[in-house]
């Protein structure tokens, strides 16, 4: 076990360093995706399969793909106009007079990380106080899976604000117009594989949503898988391309709206905002999670932006 741990930790550090030191950001993004997948293994090793699912789908997949897309766009446009590269800065801001003292910054970062490690080592472990509290309160929550109970019952306020942050981010992203994407060349192999993969991904998304109430899974993982299916269909130029409808504002705001409405309505019956009346917990939580899944999928697709060149 310890050897596997050391191997995982070593792979994690090597991949992180390789991603940051890669020759180009494109290569770095691909290495970052690999880093995220190894990190997902680490989460499984540490007993957090929910985090592993989210890391693999969102942390590695979506974040890495966003960076890769932007790096590829920069690369293709720069090689397209080599003269622009030599033109120098076009903004009237003055150039800094002297180069930055890199070793000072390096030493400061090293000191910060060292202090962080010392502080973390000095923290007394809480001896599972939170785990016990959750296990104690779980029967009242009527949700079998502790992580889902924390996300949607005990600390539902956090999740509500998280959805609000996601909505704010997508509004900001949509405010800066993306350049229109060139139509991708038709790839028969990719189209065929995608035609097989997309129905499977839809099934997995619905399963993850349903499983979230009793074991690992939930709206975030399901939404990420759904968004992956939609984006895959788009990149393969399948006729199934609901993304222009999927990223409409009503769908983006659906999750937050349903969460607030149920939180207030059911909360009025239960006597506390964001509470649920006894006996109704599972259907209400599932309704919230279904709305969240649709909104999260729409949000992730919208974050990629750049609709079809009409």
């Amino acid at each position: 076990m310890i050897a596997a741990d050391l191997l995982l930790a070593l792979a994690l550090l090597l991949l992180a360093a390789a991603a940051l030191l890669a020759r180009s950001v494109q290569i770095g993004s691909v290495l970052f995706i690999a880093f995220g997948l190894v990190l997902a293994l680490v989460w499984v090793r540490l007993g957090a399969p929910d985090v592993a699912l989210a890391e693999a789908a969102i942390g590695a997949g979506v974040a890495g793909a966003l960076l890769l897309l932007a790096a590829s766009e920069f690369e293709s446009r720069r090689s397209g106009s080599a003269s622009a590269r030599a033109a120098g800065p076009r903004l009237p801001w003055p150039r800094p007079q002297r180069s930055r003292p890199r070793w000072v910054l390096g030493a400061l970062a090293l000191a910060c990380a060292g202090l962080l490690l010392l502080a973390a080592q000095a923290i007394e472990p809480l001896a599972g106080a939170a785990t016990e509290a959750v296990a104690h309160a779980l029967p009242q929550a009527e949700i079998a899976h502790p992580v889902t109970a924390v996300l949607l019952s005990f600390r539902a306020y956090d999740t509500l604000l998280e959805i609000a942050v996601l909505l704010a981010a997508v509004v900001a992203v949509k405010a800066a117009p993306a350049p229109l994407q060139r139509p991708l060349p038709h790839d028969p192999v990719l189209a065929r594989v995608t035609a097989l993969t997309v129905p499977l991904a839809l099934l997995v998304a619905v399963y993850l949503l349903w499983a979230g109430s009793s074991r690992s899974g939930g709206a975030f993982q399901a939404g990420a898988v759904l968004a992956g299916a939609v984006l895959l269909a788009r990149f393969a130029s399948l006729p199934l391309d609901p993304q222009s409808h999927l990223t409409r504002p009503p769908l983006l705001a659906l999750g937050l709206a349903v969460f607030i409405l149920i939180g207030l309505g059911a909360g009025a019956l239960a006597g506390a905002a964001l509470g649920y009346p006894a006996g109704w917990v599972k259907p209400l939580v599932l309704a919230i999670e279904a709305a969240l899944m649709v909104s999260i999928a729409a949000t992730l697709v919208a974050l990629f932006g750049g609709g079809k060149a009409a």
Partner: protein
Amino acid sequence: MNGAESGTGSAGLSALWELLAGQFDGGFGGGFEGGFSIWLPTGSALVLFGLLGMLLAASILRKLLAFNVMGSGIFLLLLALRPTGPDGVADPVAQALILTGIVIALAATALGVRLARRYFELTGQTELPEDRDTARDD
């Protein structure tokens, strides 16, 4: 699941650990008795890599990459600080916090990437003016 980390294996483990992780904390041996974790130094090292990347890289996209690596290190520290439960399941509150953190980090990354693309569109540059004197990369 964590039986190997406590009890009889602990002494040999500590020796191995001091051998392998000497570069992280030279004379620091205090944290061993409470069931040490290799994930604390790993998380700290990831934070260090991310910090260095954010400070020293010129390209905006590379800074965002470093931001994500740094976030991963923080999440790792957050979970490593909570003891795993008796059935091998990690602290659900920490798990929920990390789930929220992953989504928020993604939102920040997406916003940063879109701003970088817009900046590139307007100026043709992939790094901010104050970073431009360093070597052009990406």
